[in-house]
């Protein structure tokens, strides 16, 4: 009898999980023409929060313009999702899932490591992939199918190094990144290059994955007398670093990359004395219409609000996801066909004016961008404030 009860309990646990995962999936079987856009983003793992915000931008764009004209016919645009789990080992399987669902073009991913890991799968399927906020040079280098609409890490690292020197007169910087994460390590290398070239010194450290004790690193930065802490890390780590730096009364400013541009990080900085600066793709207030409409969309839609971290602050990645969707539509229109190969051929010549600025591609497949927005956290209101526009050139 007890055995039966135990079995029932175990089954209840299992089915509650199964019930949670069911209920997705959509179909439009009423004969209308459909073109599918693959959304290759993390919905779980370290970068799950960022991936969801980027996806949110695409979903909003899709709700605004749900159709596209191809050769005089109206196609319904359907977003198809695959969760790469922020994990380079899972990325190829998620990519294959999209290929299996016959998508015409792929958007994503948030995070360069997973994009690089999935690149081969998209290449073999003859698909074009459009990176939204993956900033590592290796995403587009040496291939003709991966493109991106954001700036690159060499640019971003240089911008942040210049900013640290201009704004704080920093001479010594402490860099902290996740061990084995290409995004973190890449940015630190570029930051270090630029910072040392300009006469500064850099101490760089790496922490292991899933680490949550950062007090030792912050203590080290303090005792070494560093003027600035540069940590281009994932959101979950950034919140830890900010709150632990506040606890240890760190008096140096924290400078972060585009990943730190997130509500969670702002919440961690709220009420502390930490000076937090980030570089990013879009600053709220850059396009008033877009801001107003997407805020309305987020506030009306409970799922969107949850994906955005429970409030209506607009992340730069959301604006980028929005732009990426329209760049993809432009490519589809230019191709005049739903054929992935034609879209891939049409993409490099697409020129589009998005909310985050003008988008055009160079011969490598990268967007030509020359400025980054720097934002500073307001520790009382927990909102970002526009600091400056910084270029790479000194």
């Amino acid at each position, binding site marked *: 009898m007890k055995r039966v009860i135990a079995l029932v309990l175990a089954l209840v646990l*299992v089915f509650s999980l199964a019930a949670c995962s069911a209920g997705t999936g959509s179909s439009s079987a009423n004969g209308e023409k459909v073109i599918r856009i693959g959304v290759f983003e993390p919905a779980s793992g370290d970068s799950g929060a960022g991936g969801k915000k980027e996806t949110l931008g695409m979903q909003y764009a899709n709700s605004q313009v749900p159709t596209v004209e191809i050769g005089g016919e109206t196609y319904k645009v359907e977003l198809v999702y695959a969760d790469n789990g922020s994990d380079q080992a899972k990325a190829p399987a998620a990519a294959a899932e999209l290929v299996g669902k016959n998508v015409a073009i792929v958007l994503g991913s948030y995070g360069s490591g997973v994009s690089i890991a999935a690149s081969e799968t998209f290449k073999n399927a003859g698909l074009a992939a459009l990176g939204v906020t993956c900033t590592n040079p290796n995403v587009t280098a040496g291939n003709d199918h991966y493109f991106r609409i954001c700036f690159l890490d060499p640019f971003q690292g240089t911008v942040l190094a210049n900013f640290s020197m201009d704004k704080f007169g920093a001479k010594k910087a402490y860099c902290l990144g996740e061990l084995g994460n290409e995004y973190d390590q890449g940015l630190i290398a570029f930051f270090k290059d630029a910072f040392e070239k300009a006469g500064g010194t850099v101490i760089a450290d790496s922490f*292991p994955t899933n*680490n*949550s004790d950062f007090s030792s690193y912050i203590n080290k930065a303090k005792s070494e007398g560093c003027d600035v802490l540069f940590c281009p890390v994932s959101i979950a780590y950034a919140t*830890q670093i900010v709150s*632990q730096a506040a606890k*240890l009364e760190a008096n140096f400013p924290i400078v972060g990359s585009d990943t730190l541009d997130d509500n969670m990080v702002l919440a961690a900085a709220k009420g502390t004395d930490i000076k937090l600066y980030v570089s990013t793709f879009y600053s709220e207030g850059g396009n008033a219409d877009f801001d107003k409409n997407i805020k309305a969309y987020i506030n009306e839609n409970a799922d969107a609000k949850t994906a955005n971290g429970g409030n209506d602050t607009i992340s730069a990645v959301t604006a980028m996801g929005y732009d990426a969707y329209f760049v993809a539509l432009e490519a589809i229109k230019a191709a005049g066909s739903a054929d992935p190969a034609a879209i891939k051929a049409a993409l490099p010549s697409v020129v589009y004016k998005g909310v985050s600025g003008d988008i055009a591609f160079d011969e490598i497949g990268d967007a030509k961008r020359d400025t980054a927005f720097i934002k500073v956290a307001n520790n009382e209101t927990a909102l970002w404030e526009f600091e400056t526009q910084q270029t790479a050139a000194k």
Partner: protein
Amino acid sequence: MEFLTSQILSGISLGGQYALIAIGYTMVYGILRLINFAHGDVFMVAGLLMVYMSTVMPIYVSIPLMIVLTVLLGFVIERAAYKPLRSAPRMSVMISAIGVSYLLQNLALYATGGQPKTYASIPWISNTIHIFGAPTRVVTVVTPILVIILVVLLTLLINHTKIGIAMRAVSKDFETSQLMGVKINSVISATFVIGTFLAAVGSLLYFTNYPTVVPMSGALPGLKAFVAAVFGGIGSIPGAVIGAFIIGICETLIKGTDFAVFSDAFTFALLIIILVVKPTGIFGEKTTDKV
């Protein structure tokens, strides 16, 4: 000087938090000869429960409620996933434990949607104080004191109460004590209740110090607490506590040097060395072969 003080302080508090998890591993192993892989995830669930409850109710209600719910979870896991396998080979129970671990992680992933959750700041223990000029949180000082009090209470419980005597009997010989009339199921349940209670207290202290909860939050502390339990001699409570403090302090000290990258490698290298050199750990019981 401030640097060293600060490092040692965070090492001691980290060690204390590992100790509270390690006791749960060591007690369950002592009695069931089971490495309860789900223990670290129970610790994470305790953190998440607190995150969700502290938004809807005052802190003095949510803390006791969180501890009660976590203990209940530990109890239910034992009844649903381990008890039916009591007469099965030990390996089956271990696999069941791994299954529970993954189930908890994925349920947490579903509940949080992959977003990191910020832990509530608990009044008083999250305040900043200065010790020898080094700023730290009150929790850093509270942790080792609380650990010592809890361990003393636990030792008293094991040495001087009826359930404690039953626990020692069961850990010496499972079958004989059953024949002697010890109610084996209630003893095992009590062990899980105590273990999860300590994990819940540990999570309260740990997440006050490191206030971000993600579904994988329990994995690394759980693994390190397990190493601490092996290091101290699995099955021995004082061993687990001392092992946890050694690991916590070494880890933070290494992170402060140029070898910061190897801080985790050190912990696991220690595990291998201990297993090779002294498999029973510092305080481990000697195995005597009976004919």
